[in-house]
Protein backbone atom coordinates (compact mmCIF):
# COMPACT_ATOMS: atom_id res chain seq x y z
CA UNK A 1 0.00 0.00 0.00
CA UNK A 2 1.58 3.24 -1.16
CA UNK A 3 0.19 6.50 0.22
CA UNK A 4 -0.76 9.23 -2.23
CA UNK A 5 -1.35 12.89 -1.46
CA UNK A 6 -3.63 14.76 -3.84
CA UNK A 7 -3.94 18.54 -3.78
CA UNK A 8 -6.84 20.15 -5.63
CA UNK A 9 -7.74 23.81 -5.87
CA UNK A 10 -5.88 24.73 -2.70
CA UNK A 11 -5.96 28.42 -1.78
CA UNK A 12 -4.54 30.25 1.20
CA UNK A 13 -5.40 33.90 1.63
CA UNK A 14 -3.85 36.33 4.13
CA UNK A 15 -6.12 39.32 4.40
CA UNK A 16 -7.01 39.84 0.75
CA UNK A 17 -3.70 38.67 -0.70
CA UNK A 18 -3.70 35.11 -2.04
CA UNK A 19 -0.47 33.36 -1.01
CA UNK A 20 -1.42 30.04 -2.58
CA UNK A 21 -3.72 30.52 -5.53
CA UNK A 22 -5.98 27.65 -6.54
CA UNK A 23 -3.09 25.18 -6.59
CA UNK A 24 -3.55 21.70 -8.01
CA UNK A 25 -0.86 19.03 -8.05
CA UNK A 26 -0.90 15.55 -9.56
CA UNK A 27 -0.76 12.96 -6.72
CA UNK A 28 2.44 12.94 -4.68
CA UNK A 29 3.40 9.31 -4.11
CA UNK A 30 5.02 7.73 -1.09
CA UNK A 31 8.48 6.24 -1.28
CA UNK A 32 10.20 9.25 -2.77
CA UNK A 33 11.14 12.77 -1.82
CA UNK A 34 9.48 15.77 -3.43
CA UNK A 35 11.31 19.08 -3.31
CA UNK A 36 9.48 22.38 -3.13
CA UNK A 37 11.68 25.12 -4.53
CA UNK A 38 11.16 28.69 -5.64
CA UNK A 39 12.31 32.23 -4.99
CA UNK A 40 11.66 34.11 -1.75
CA UNK A 41 7.99 34.75 -0.98
CA UNK A 42 6.83 32.16 -3.52
CA UNK A 43 4.58 30.58 -0.88
CA UNK A 44 6.66 27.49 -0.12
CA UNK A 45 6.33 27.66 3.66
CA UNK A 46 2.67 28.62 3.42
CA UNK A 47 1.94 25.61 1.20
CA UNK A 48 3.73 23.32 3.65
CA UNK A 49 1.84 24.81 6.61
CA UNK A 50 -1.44 24.47 4.74
CA UNK A 51 -0.69 20.80 4.08
CA UNK A 52 0.09 20.43 7.79
CA UNK A 53 -3.27 21.95 8.71
CA UNK A 54 -1.67 24.94 10.41
CA UNK A 55 -3.26 27.67 8.28
CA UNK A 56 -6.88 27.79 7.15
CA UNK A 57 -7.08 26.83 3.50
CA UNK A 58 -9.79 26.32 0.91
CA UNK A 59 -9.71 23.41 -1.47
CA UNK A 60 -8.91 19.78 -0.99
CA UNK A 61 -5.94 17.83 0.34
CA UNK A 62 -6.62 14.11 0.24
CA UNK A 63 -4.50 11.29 1.59
CA UNK A 64 -5.23 7.92 0.06
CA UNK A 65 -3.47 4.60 -0.26
CA UNK A 66 -3.02 2.75 -3.51
CA UNK A 67 -3.19 -0.98 -3.01
CA UNK A 68 -2.22 -3.76 -5.39
CA UNK A 69 -5.76 -4.02 -6.78
CA UNK A 70 -7.87 -0.99 -5.91
CA UNK A 71 -6.81 2.41 -7.25
CA UNK A 72 -7.26 4.61 -4.17
CA UNK A 73 -8.40 3.12 -0.90
CA UNK A 74 -10.31 5.23 1.63
CA UNK A 75 -9.02 8.69 0.85
CA UNK A 76 -9.04 11.00 3.87
CA UNK A 77 -9.90 14.65 3.35
CA UNK A 78 -7.15 16.19 5.50
CA UNK A 79 -8.50 19.75 5.39
CA UNK A 80 -11.59 18.65 7.31
CA UNK A 81 -9.75 16.89 10.12
CA UNK A 82 -9.26 18.53 13.52
CA UNK A 83 -5.59 19.12 14.28
CA UNK A 84 -5.40 16.20 16.72
CA UNK A 85 -6.34 13.72 13.98
CA UNK A 86 -4.51 15.57 11.24
CA UNK A 87 -1.29 15.17 13.23
CA UNK A 88 -1.61 11.39 13.19
CA UNK A 89 -0.94 11.42 9.46
CA UNK A 90 1.12 14.54 8.87
CA UNK A 91 4.08 16.07 10.73
CA UNK A 92 5.57 19.45 9.97
CA UNK A 93 9.07 20.55 10.88
CA UNK A 94 9.13 24.34 11.00
CA UNK A 95 12.12 26.36 9.94
CA UNK A 96 12.22 28.40 13.15
CA UNK A 97 13.88 26.63 16.03
CA UNK A 98 12.88 27.29 19.64
CA UNK A 99 15.06 29.62 21.68
CA UNK A 100 15.85 29.50 25.38
CA UNK A 101 14.20 26.20 26.17
CA UNK A 102 15.28 24.28 29.26
CA UNK A 103 14.69 20.80 27.83
CA UNK A 104 17.14 18.10 26.84
CA UNK A 105 17.18 16.63 23.33
CA UNK A 106 15.68 13.43 24.70
CA UNK A 107 12.92 15.20 26.64
CA UNK A 108 11.97 17.24 23.59
CA UNK A 109 11.78 14.10 21.44
CA UNK A 110 9.75 12.36 24.12
CA UNK A 111 7.31 15.26 24.36
CA UNK A 112 6.59 14.91 20.63
CA UNK A 113 5.08 11.52 21.48
CA UNK A 114 3.65 12.09 24.94
CA UNK A 115 1.84 15.38 24.36
CA UNK A 116 -0.77 14.29 21.84
CA UNK A 117 -3.83 12.48 23.10
CA UNK A 118 -3.95 10.13 20.14
CA UNK A 119 -0.50 8.84 21.06
CA UNK A 120 -1.28 8.08 24.68
CA UNK A 121 -1.59 4.42 23.75
CA UNK A 122 2.18 4.36 23.93
CA UNK A 123 3.65 3.52 27.29
CA UNK A 124 6.53 5.61 28.64
CA UNK A 125 8.89 2.71 27.93
CA UNK A 126 7.75 2.35 24.33
CA UNK A 127 7.97 6.09 23.78
CA UNK A 128 11.48 6.16 25.22
CA UNK A 129 12.57 3.26 23.02
CA UNK A 130 11.20 4.98 19.92
CA UNK A 131 12.85 8.28 20.82
CA UNK A 132 16.22 6.61 21.32
CA UNK A 133 15.96 4.71 18.03
CA UNK A 134 15.34 7.96 16.16
CA UNK A 135 18.18 9.78 17.90
CA UNK A 136 20.53 6.94 17.03
CA UNK A 137 19.37 6.86 13.45
CA UNK A 138 20.12 10.59 13.17
CA UNK A 139 23.51 10.06 14.79
CA UNK A 140 22.74 12.30 17.76
CA UNK A 141 22.32 9.69 20.49
CA UNK A 142 25.35 11.22 22.22
CA UNK A 143 23.49 14.55 22.41
CA UNK A 144 20.39 13.11 24.05
CA UNK A 145 21.25 14.41 27.55
CA UNK A 146 22.31 17.84 26.32
CA UNK A 147 20.03 20.83 26.73
CA UNK A 148 18.58 22.23 23.49
CA UNK A 149 20.13 25.58 24.41
CA UNK A 150 23.63 24.13 24.54
CA UNK A 151 23.47 22.92 20.94
CA UNK A 152 24.75 24.55 17.79
CA UNK A 153 22.24 25.60 15.14
CA UNK A 154 22.88 22.46 13.11
CA UNK A 155 22.56 20.14 16.08
CA UNK A 156 19.32 21.84 17.01
CA UNK A 157 18.02 21.26 13.51
CA UNK A 158 18.81 17.55 13.85
CA UNK A 159 17.05 17.52 17.22
CA UNK A 160 14.04 19.14 15.60
CA UNK A 161 14.08 16.55 12.82
CA UNK A 162 14.10 13.84 15.49
CA UNK A 163 10.91 15.31 16.97
CA UNK A 164 9.24 14.96 13.57
CA UNK A 165 10.53 11.47 12.73
CA UNK A 166 9.64 10.00 16.11
CA UNK A 167 5.96 10.52 15.32
CA UNK A 168 6.30 8.13 12.36
CA UNK A 169 4.05 10.15 10.07
CA UNK A 170 2.72 9.05 6.69
CA UNK A 171 3.42 12.53 5.34
CA UNK A 172 6.59 14.27 6.47
CA UNK A 173 6.85 17.98 5.70
CA UNK A 174 10.26 19.58 6.17
CA UNK A 175 10.84 23.33 5.90
CA UNK A 176 14.50 23.86 5.00
CA UNK A 177 15.80 21.19 7.36
CA UNK A 178 19.39 21.60 6.17
CA UNK A 179 19.73 25.40 6.21
CA UNK A 180 21.96 25.49 9.30
CA UNK A 181 23.93 22.33 8.61
CA UNK A 182 27.48 21.90 7.33
CA UNK A 183 27.99 19.94 4.11
CA UNK A 184 28.55 16.64 5.89
CA UNK A 185 25.34 16.92 7.87
CA UNK A 186 23.40 18.23 4.87
CA UNK A 187 24.34 15.08 2.97
CA UNK A 188 23.57 12.85 5.93
CA UNK A 189 20.15 14.36 6.47
CA UNK A 190 19.21 14.22 2.78
CA UNK A 191 20.41 10.62 2.46
CA UNK A 192 18.54 9.67 5.60
CA UNK A 193 15.33 11.35 4.51
CA UNK A 194 15.53 9.61 1.12
CA UNK A 195 16.18 6.25 2.83
CA UNK A 196 13.27 6.70 5.23
CA UNK A 197 10.94 7.63 2.42
CA UNK A 198 11.90 4.49 0.53
CA UNK A 199 11.95 2.11 3.51
CA UNK A 200 8.61 3.09 4.97
CA UNK A 201 7.14 4.31 1.70
CA UNK A 202 6.16 7.60 3.26
CA UNK A 203 5.54 10.90 1.50
CA UNK A 204 8.27 13.48 2.06
CA UNK A 205 7.84 17.06 0.89
CA UNK A 206 10.84 19.22 1.57
CA UNK A 207 11.48 22.93 1.03
CA UNK A 208 15.03 23.46 -0.19
CA UNK A 209 17.04 26.47 -1.28
CA UNK A 210 19.86 24.49 -2.88
CA UNK A 211 18.61 23.49 -6.34
CA UNK A 212 21.48 21.06 -7.00
CA UNK A 213 20.74 19.32 -3.71
CA UNK A 214 17.09 19.05 -4.68
CA UNK A 215 18.08 17.61 -8.05
CA UNK A 216 20.32 15.03 -6.45
CA UNK A 217 18.07 13.62 -3.74
CA UNK A 218 14.52 14.27 -4.91
CA UNK A 219 12.59 12.31 -7.52
CA UNK A 220 10.25 15.18 -8.14
CA UNK A 221 10.68 18.94 -8.11
CA UNK A 222 7.81 21.37 -7.72
CA UNK A 223 8.74 24.96 -8.51
CA UNK A 224 6.49 27.58 -6.91
CA UNK A 225 6.20 31.15 -8.04
CA UNK A 226 3.79 33.61 -6.43
CA UNK A 227 1.57 30.85 -5.15
CA UNK A 228 1.35 29.04 -8.47
CA UNK A 229 3.12 25.97 -9.84
CA UNK A 230 5.75 27.18 -12.30
CA UNK A 231 7.17 23.74 -13.07
CA UNK A 232 6.58 20.20 -11.83
CA UNK A 233 8.34 16.96 -12.72
CA UNK A 234 11.53 14.97 -12.39
CA UNK A 235 14.66 17.14 -11.97
CA UNK A 236 15.62 17.03 -15.67
CA UNK A 237 12.20 18.33 -16.66
CA UNK A 238 11.66 20.89 -13.92
CA UNK A 239 15.11 22.42 -13.70
CA UNK A 240 15.88 24.14 -16.98
CA UNK A 241 17.67 27.35 -17.94
CA UNK A 242 14.29 28.72 -19.13
CA UNK A 243 12.66 28.03 -15.74
CA UNK A 244 15.61 29.60 -13.90
CA UNK A 245 15.41 32.69 -16.08
CA UNK A 246 11.64 33.00 -15.73
CA UNK A 247 11.25 32.19 -12.02
CA UNK A 248 14.59 33.03 -10.42
CA UNK A 249 15.54 35.84 -12.82
CA UNK A 250 19.04 34.45 -13.39
CA UNK A 251 20.93 33.42 -16.46
CA UNK A 252 22.15 29.92 -15.68
CA UNK A 253 23.36 26.70 -17.25
CA UNK A 254 22.06 23.31 -16.16
CA UNK A 255 24.63 20.59 -16.81
CA UNK A 256 25.05 17.04 -15.61
CA UNK A 257 28.19 16.40 -13.57
CA UNK A 258 30.50 13.43 -14.26
CA UNK A 259 28.17 11.24 -12.19
CA UNK A 260 25.10 12.38 -14.05
CA UNK A 261 23.61 14.62 -11.35
CA UNK A 262 22.31 17.99 -12.48
CA UNK A 263 24.39 21.02 -11.57
CA UNK A 264 23.21 24.58 -11.80
CA UNK A 265 25.85 27.13 -12.75
CA UNK A 266 24.55 30.66 -12.36
CA UNK A 267 26.21 33.18 -14.64
CA UNK A 268 24.42 36.38 -13.70
CA UNK A 269 21.22 37.91 -12.48
CA UNK A 270 18.95 39.30 -15.19
Amino acid at each position, binding site marked *: MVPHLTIEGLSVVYGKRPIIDNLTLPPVAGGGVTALIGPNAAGKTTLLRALAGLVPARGSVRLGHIGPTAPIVHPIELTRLPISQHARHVTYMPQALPQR*VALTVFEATLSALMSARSDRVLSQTQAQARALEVLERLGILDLSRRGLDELSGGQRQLASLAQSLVREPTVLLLDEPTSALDIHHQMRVMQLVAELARE*RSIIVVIVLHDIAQAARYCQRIVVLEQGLVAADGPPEQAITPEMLARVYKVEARVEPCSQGFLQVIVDRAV
Partner: protein
Amino acid sequence: MRPPSAPIDAADAAPHAAHAGERAAYARLVRRRVLIVAGLGALMVMALLFDIATGPSNLPLAEVVSGLVNPAGLDAPSRVIIWEVRLPTALMAVLVGTALALAGAEMQTILNNPLASPFTLGVSSAASFGAALALVLGVSLPLLPADWNLPAFAFLFALGSVLMLQAMANLRGTGVETLVLFGIALVFTFNALVALVQYVASQEALQQLVFWSMGSLSRASWGKLGVLALVTAAVVPFSLAAAWRMTALRLGEDRARSFGISVKRLRFFSLLRVSLLAATSVAFVGTIGFIGLVAPHIARLLVGEDHRFFLPASMLAGAVIMSLASVGSKLIVPGALLPVGIVTALIGVPFFMVLIFSRRERM
Protein backbone atom coordinates in the same frame (compact mmCIF):
# COMPACT_ATOMS: atom_id res chain seq x y z
CA MET B 1 -3.45 3.85 8.01
CA ARG B 2 0.27 4.17 8.67
CA PRO B 3 2.49 1.65 6.92
CA PRO B 4 3.84 -1.19 9.04
CA SER B 5 6.69 0.41 10.88
CA ALA B 6 9.73 -1.76 10.87
CA PRO B 7 12.14 -0.98 13.69
CA ILE B 8 14.11 2.00 12.51
CA ASP B 9 17.38 0.24 12.94
CA ALA B 10 16.83 -3.27 11.68
CA ALA B 11 20.38 -4.30 12.57
CA ASP B 12 19.71 -3.58 16.23
CA ALA B 13 16.68 -5.62 17.14
CA ALA B 14 18.15 -6.51 20.52
CA PRO B 15 18.16 -3.78 23.16
CA HIS B 16 21.20 -1.71 22.53
CA ALA B 17 23.80 -1.04 25.25
CA ALA B 18 23.88 2.66 24.41
CA HIS B 19 20.07 2.79 24.61
CA ALA B 20 20.08 1.14 28.00
CA GLY B 21 22.65 3.69 29.14
CA GLU B 22 20.55 6.61 27.94
CA ARG B 23 17.45 5.15 29.51
CA ALA B 24 19.21 4.75 32.84
CA ALA B 25 20.51 8.32 32.58
CA TYR B 26 16.98 9.59 31.99
CA ALA B 27 15.68 7.56 34.93
CA ARG B 28 18.37 9.17 37.09
CA LEU B 29 17.37 12.62 35.82
CA VAL B 30 13.72 11.97 36.66
CA ARG B 31 14.68 10.66 40.09
CA ARG B 32 16.79 13.74 40.78
CA ARG B 33 13.89 16.00 39.84
CA VAL B 34 11.48 14.12 42.05
CA LEU B 35 13.99 14.56 44.88
CA ILE B 36 14.30 18.30 44.19
CA VAL B 37 10.52 18.70 44.21
CA ALA B 38 10.33 16.69 47.44
CA GLY B 39 13.11 18.84 48.88
CA LEU B 40 11.16 22.00 48.05
CA GLY B 41 8.15 20.42 49.76
CA ALA B 42 10.19 19.78 52.90
CA LEU B 43 11.54 23.33 52.75
CA MET B 44 7.98 24.61 52.52
CA VAL B 45 6.90 22.67 55.61
CA MET B 46 9.88 24.02 57.55
CA ALA B 47 9.20 27.58 56.42
CA LEU B 48 5.56 27.17 57.41
CA LEU B 49 6.45 25.95 60.92
CA PHE B 50 9.01 28.72 61.28
CA ASP B 51 6.37 31.23 60.19
CA ILE B 52 3.94 29.97 62.83
CA ALA B 53 6.63 30.15 65.52
CA THR B 54 7.65 33.71 64.66
CA GLY B 55 5.85 36.73 66.03
CA PRO B 56 5.57 39.15 68.94
CA SER B 57 5.61 36.20 71.34
CA ASN B 58 8.01 33.67 69.96
CA LEU B 59 6.96 30.07 70.37
CA PRO B 60 9.52 27.26 70.36
CA LEU B 61 9.28 25.12 67.20
CA ALA B 62 8.66 22.02 69.31
CA GLU B 63 5.64 23.64 70.89
CA VAL B 64 4.31 24.65 67.48
CA VAL B 65 4.60 21.10 66.18
CA SER B 66 3.00 19.51 69.24
CA GLY B 67 0.32 22.23 69.25
CA LEU B 68 -0.57 21.48 65.63
CA VAL B 69 -0.69 17.74 66.20
CA ASN B 70 -2.48 17.89 69.51
CA PRO B 71 -4.27 21.22 70.09
CA ALA B 72 -5.78 19.98 73.36
CA GLY B 73 -2.32 19.82 74.92
CA LEU B 74 -1.79 23.59 74.56
CA ASP B 75 -2.55 26.22 77.14
CA ALA B 76 -5.29 28.65 76.15
CA PRO B 77 -3.15 31.65 75.05
CA SER B 78 -0.83 29.52 72.92
CA ARG B 79 -3.82 27.79 71.35
CA VAL B 80 -5.33 31.12 70.34
CA ILE B 81 -2.01 32.38 68.99
CA ILE B 82 -1.34 29.26 66.95
CA TRP B 83 -4.80 28.34 65.74
CA GLU B 84 -6.57 31.69 65.51
CA VAL B 85 -3.78 34.11 64.62
CA ARG B 86 -0.68 32.50 63.17
CA LEU B 87 -1.94 29.42 61.34
CA PRO B 88 -4.46 31.17 59.04
CA THR B 89 -1.86 33.79 58.09
CA ALA B 90 0.89 31.22 57.58
CA LEU B 91 -1.32 28.94 55.49
CA MET B 92 -2.52 31.94 53.51
CA ALA B 93 1.11 32.76 52.70
CA VAL B 94 1.74 29.23 51.46
CA LEU B 95 -1.46 29.10 49.42
CA VAL B 96 -1.03 32.54 47.86
CA GLY B 97 2.57 31.69 46.98
CA THR B 98 1.43 28.43 45.38
CA ALA B 99 -1.40 30.02 43.41
CA LEU B 100 0.54 33.04 42.13
CA ALA B 101 3.54 30.92 41.17
CA LEU B 102 1.39 28.45 39.24
CA ALA B 103 -0.38 31.33 37.51
CA GLY B 104 2.99 32.85 36.58
CA ALA B 105 4.44 29.55 35.37
CA GLU B 106 1.48 28.84 33.11
CA MET B 107 1.48 32.39 31.76
CA GLN B 108 5.18 32.28 30.95
CA THR B 109 4.70 29.07 29.01
CA ILE B 110 1.52 29.85 27.09
CA LEU B 111 2.62 33.39 26.25
CA ASN B 112 6.17 32.21 25.54
CA ASN B 113 7.52 35.13 27.54
CA PRO B 114 9.77 34.90 30.59
CA LEU B 115 8.54 38.28 31.83
CA ALA B 116 4.88 37.31 31.93
CA SER B 117 3.21 37.12 35.33
CA PRO B 118 -0.16 38.10 36.80
CA PHE B 119 1.50 41.30 37.98
CA THR B 120 3.21 42.31 34.74
CA LEU B 121 0.13 41.68 32.62
CA GLY B 122 -2.35 43.79 34.52
CA VAL B 123 -4.19 41.32 36.75
CA SER B 124 -2.97 42.95 39.95
CA SER B 125 -3.56 46.46 38.63
CA ALA B 126 -7.10 45.54 37.68
CA ALA B 127 -7.68 44.10 41.14
CA SER B 128 -6.35 47.32 42.68
CA PHE B 129 -8.77 49.32 40.59
CA GLY B 130 -11.64 47.13 41.76
CA ALA B 131 -10.52 47.55 45.35
CA ALA B 132 -10.19 51.31 44.85
CA LEU B 133 -13.75 51.56 43.58
CA ALA B 134 -15.06 49.60 46.52
CA LEU B 135 -13.07 51.58 49.10
CA VAL B 136 -13.30 55.08 47.76
CA LEU B 137 -16.69 55.17 46.12
CA GLY B 138 -18.16 52.92 48.78
CA VAL B 139 -19.89 50.72 46.24
CA SER B 140 -21.00 47.42 47.63
CA LEU B 141 -22.36 44.19 46.26
CA PRO B 142 -25.61 42.87 47.68
CA LEU B 143 -25.76 39.65 49.73
CA LEU B 144 -22.09 39.79 50.75
CA PRO B 145 -20.74 40.22 54.28
CA ALA B 146 -19.01 43.59 54.64
CA ASP B 147 -15.45 42.32 54.81
CA TRP B 148 -15.94 40.25 51.62
CA ASN B 149 -17.02 43.25 49.58
CA LEU B 150 -13.55 44.48 48.75
CA PRO B 151 -12.14 41.05 47.81
CA ALA B 152 -15.21 40.47 45.64
CA PHE B 153 -14.59 43.71 43.74
CA ALA B 154 -10.90 43.00 43.35
CA PHE B 155 -11.73 39.49 42.13
CA LEU B 156 -14.24 40.64 39.55
CA PHE B 157 -11.87 43.20 38.06
CA ALA B 158 -8.89 40.83 38.06
CA LEU B 159 -11.00 38.17 36.37
CA GLY B 160 -12.26 40.77 33.92
CA SER B 161 -8.74 41.77 32.94
CA VAL B 162 -7.71 38.19 32.16
CA LEU B 163 -10.91 37.66 30.24
CA MET B 164 -10.01 40.72 28.18
CA LEU B 165 -6.62 39.15 27.48
CA GLN B 166 -8.52 36.00 26.61
CA ALA B 167 -10.75 37.82 24.17
CA MET B 168 -7.67 39.30 22.54
CA ALA B 169 -6.13 35.85 22.26
CA ASN B 170 -9.18 34.64 20.39
CA LEU B 171 -9.16 37.44 17.87
CA ARG B 172 -7.87 36.05 14.62
CA GLY B 173 -4.28 36.75 13.82
CA THR B 174 -3.28 37.88 17.27
CA GLY B 175 0.16 36.61 18.15
CA VAL B 176 1.40 36.11 21.68
CA GLU B 177 3.59 39.21 21.44
CA THR B 178 0.48 41.32 20.84
CA LEU B 179 -1.10 39.67 23.83
CA VAL B 180 1.81 40.59 26.08
CA LEU B 181 1.73 44.17 24.80
CA PHE B 182 -1.99 44.31 25.48
CA GLY B 183 -1.36 43.09 29.03
CA ILE B 184 1.18 45.85 29.55
CA ALA B 185 -1.31 48.37 28.19
CA LEU B 186 -3.79 47.06 30.78
CA VAL B 187 -1.25 47.70 33.56
CA PHE B 188 -0.91 51.35 32.55
CA THR B 189 -4.64 51.83 32.03
CA PHE B 190 -5.61 50.44 35.41
CA ASN B 191 -2.79 52.25 37.18
CA ALA B 192 -4.02 55.51 35.67
CA LEU B 193 -7.58 54.71 36.75
CA VAL B 194 -6.40 53.89 40.29
CA ALA B 195 -4.51 57.20 40.39
CA LEU B 196 -7.66 58.96 39.26
CA VAL B 197 -9.69 57.36 42.04
CA GLN B 198 -6.92 58.18 44.54
CA TYR B 199 -6.99 61.80 43.43
CA VAL B 200 -10.64 62.18 44.40
CA ALA B 201 -10.42 59.95 47.48
CA SER B 202 -10.73 61.12 51.04
CA GLN B 203 -7.66 61.04 53.27
CA GLU B 204 -8.93 58.00 55.13
CA ALA B 205 -9.92 56.01 52.04
CA LEU B 206 -6.61 56.86 50.43
CA GLN B 207 -4.72 55.45 53.38
CA GLN B 208 -6.74 52.24 53.30
CA LEU B 209 -6.19 51.91 49.58
CA VAL B 210 -2.43 52.39 49.80
CA PHE B 211 -2.25 49.82 52.57
CA TRP B 212 -4.38 47.38 50.59
CA SER B 213 -2.25 47.69 47.49
CA MET B 214 0.91 46.91 49.46
CA GLY B 215 -0.33 43.39 49.98
CA SER B 216 -0.89 41.99 53.44
CA LEU B 217 -1.57 38.59 54.92
CA SER B 218 -3.14 40.00 58.06
CA ARG B 219 -6.59 39.94 56.48
CA ALA B 220 -6.48 36.14 56.34
CA SER B 221 -9.33 34.19 57.88
CA TRP B 222 -10.34 30.55 57.80
CA GLY B 223 -13.17 31.43 55.43
CA LYS B 224 -10.96 33.17 52.87
CA LEU B 225 -8.38 30.44 53.29
CA GLY B 226 -11.04 27.88 52.47
CA VAL B 227 -12.05 29.69 49.28
CA LEU B 228 -8.47 30.00 48.04
CA ALA B 229 -7.71 26.38 48.97
CA LEU B 230 -10.78 25.24 47.07
CA VAL B 231 -9.89 27.24 43.96
CA THR B 232 -6.28 26.04 44.01
CA ALA B 233 -7.27 22.42 44.60
CA ALA B 234 -9.76 22.61 41.73
CA VAL B 235 -7.26 24.13 39.30
CA VAL B 236 -4.06 22.17 40.01
CA PRO B 237 -5.20 18.79 38.60
CA PHE B 238 -6.10 20.43 35.28
CA SER B 239 -2.75 22.20 35.15
CA LEU B 240 -0.90 18.95 35.76
CA ALA B 241 -3.01 17.14 33.19
CA ALA B 242 -1.83 19.68 30.60
CA ALA B 243 1.83 19.25 31.59
CA TRP B 244 3.02 17.30 28.52
CA ARG B 245 1.18 19.62 26.17
CA MET B 246 2.74 22.67 27.78
CA THR B 247 6.17 21.04 27.57
CA ALA B 248 5.61 20.52 23.85
CA LEU B 249 4.46 24.13 23.46
CA ARG B 250 7.91 25.22 24.61
CA LEU B 251 9.21 23.79 21.32
CA GLY B 252 7.21 26.37 19.39
CA GLU B 253 3.58 26.91 18.49
CA ASP B 254 3.71 25.37 15.00
CA ARG B 255 5.70 22.48 16.39
CA ALA B 256 3.16 21.82 19.14
CA ARG B 257 0.26 22.03 16.70
CA SER B 258 1.93 19.60 14.35
CA PHE B 259 2.10 17.18 17.31
CA GLY B 260 -1.70 17.39 17.34
CA ILE B 261 -2.13 19.88 20.17
CA SER B 262 -4.86 22.47 19.82
CA VAL B 263 -2.80 25.39 21.07
CA LYS B 264 -5.79 27.74 21.03
CA ARG B 265 -7.70 25.44 23.37
CA LEU B 266 -4.67 24.91 25.59
CA ARG B 267 -4.18 28.66 25.84
CA PHE B 268 -7.85 29.32 26.54
CA PHE B 269 -8.11 26.89 29.43
CA SER B 270 -4.73 27.87 30.81
CA LEU B 271 -5.69 31.56 30.90
CA LEU B 272 -8.93 30.55 32.58
CA ARG B 273 -6.95 28.79 35.32
CA VAL B 274 -4.59 31.73 35.59
CA SER B 275 -7.47 34.15 36.01
CA LEU B 276 -9.04 32.12 38.80
CA LEU B 277 -5.75 31.64 40.67
CA ALA B 278 -4.51 35.20 40.34
CA ALA B 279 -7.82 36.93 40.91
CA THR B 280 -8.60 34.93 44.06
CA SER B 281 -5.14 35.45 45.56
CA VAL B 282 -4.93 39.14 44.80
CA ALA B 283 -8.46 39.69 46.07
CA PHE B 284 -7.58 38.33 49.51
CA VAL B 285 -4.05 39.61 50.06
CA GLY B 286 -3.65 42.58 47.72
CA THR B 287 -0.87 43.23 45.28
CA ILE B 288 2.05 40.83 45.59
CA GLY B 289 4.10 41.19 42.49
CA PHE B 290 7.25 39.23 42.75
CA ILE B 291 6.21 35.61 43.26
CA GLY B 292 4.46 34.94 39.97
CA LEU B 293 7.47 36.20 38.05
CA VAL B 294 10.37 34.66 39.94
CA ALA B 295 9.12 31.36 41.34
CA PRO B 296 8.86 29.87 37.82
CA HIS B 297 12.39 31.03 37.05
CA ILE B 298 13.69 29.37 40.19
CA ALA B 299 11.83 26.18 39.26
CA ARG B 300 13.24 26.30 35.73
CA LEU B 301 16.79 26.57 37.05
CA LEU B 302 16.20 23.65 39.42
CA VAL B 303 14.26 21.13 37.31
CA GLY B 304 14.14 22.40 33.71
CA GLU B 305 10.95 22.75 31.71
CA ASP B 306 9.44 19.29 31.69
CA HIS B 307 6.16 20.66 33.08
CA ARG B 308 5.46 17.49 35.06
CA PHE B 309 8.20 18.76 37.38
CA PHE B 310 8.30 22.42 36.44
CA LEU B 311 4.74 23.20 37.55
CA PRO B 312 4.98 21.52 40.99
CA ALA B 313 8.44 23.00 41.55
CA SER B 314 7.11 26.47 40.68
CA MET B 315 4.22 26.11 43.12
CA LEU B 316 6.47 24.93 45.94
CA ALA B 317 9.11 27.58 45.25
CA GLY B 318 6.35 30.22 45.37
CA ALA B 319 5.07 28.82 48.65
CA VAL B 320 8.57 28.81 50.19
CA ILE B 321 9.35 32.40 49.18
CA MET B 322 5.97 33.65 50.34
CA SER B 323 6.30 31.83 53.64
CA LEU B 324 9.81 33.19 54.23
CA ALA B 325 8.55 36.65 53.25
CA SER B 326 5.87 36.29 55.90
CA VAL B 327 8.57 35.46 58.47
CA GLY B 328 10.61 38.43 57.24
CA SER B 329 7.66 40.79 57.50
CA LYS B 330 7.56 40.04 61.23
CA LEU B 331 11.31 40.15 61.88
CA ILE B 332 12.65 43.10 59.85
CA VAL B 333 11.17 45.77 62.10
CA PRO B 334 10.91 44.21 65.58
CA GLY B 335 7.44 44.55 67.01
CA ALA B 336 5.90 45.73 63.74
CA LEU B 337 4.22 43.70 61.00
CA LEU B 338 5.29 45.00 57.61
CA PRO B 339 2.97 44.50 54.62
CA VAL B 340 4.20 41.25 53.08
CA GLY B 341 4.13 42.69 49.57
CA ILE B 342 7.08 44.89 50.54
CA VAL B 343 9.10 41.98 51.80
CA THR B 344 8.60 39.37 49.04
CA ALA B 345 11.07 41.05 46.70
CA LEU B 346 13.56 41.70 49.49
CA ILE B 347 13.51 38.02 50.46
CA GLY B 348 13.20 36.60 46.96
CA VAL B 349 15.85 38.54 45.08
CA PRO B 350 18.90 37.27 47.04
CA PHE B 351 17.58 33.70 46.75
CA PHE B 352 17.16 34.20 43.01
CA MET B 353 20.60 35.77 42.56
CA VAL B 354 22.33 32.91 44.34
CA LEU B 355 20.64 30.44 42.00
CA ILE B 356 21.49 32.39 38.85
CA PHE B 357 25.15 32.71 39.79
CA SER B 358 25.56 29.14 40.98
CA ARG B 359 24.02 27.99 37.72
CA ARG B 360 26.40 30.02 35.59
CA GLU B 361 29.43 28.55 37.34
CA ARG B 362 28.31 25.04 36.57
CA MET B 363 27.87 25.70 32.87
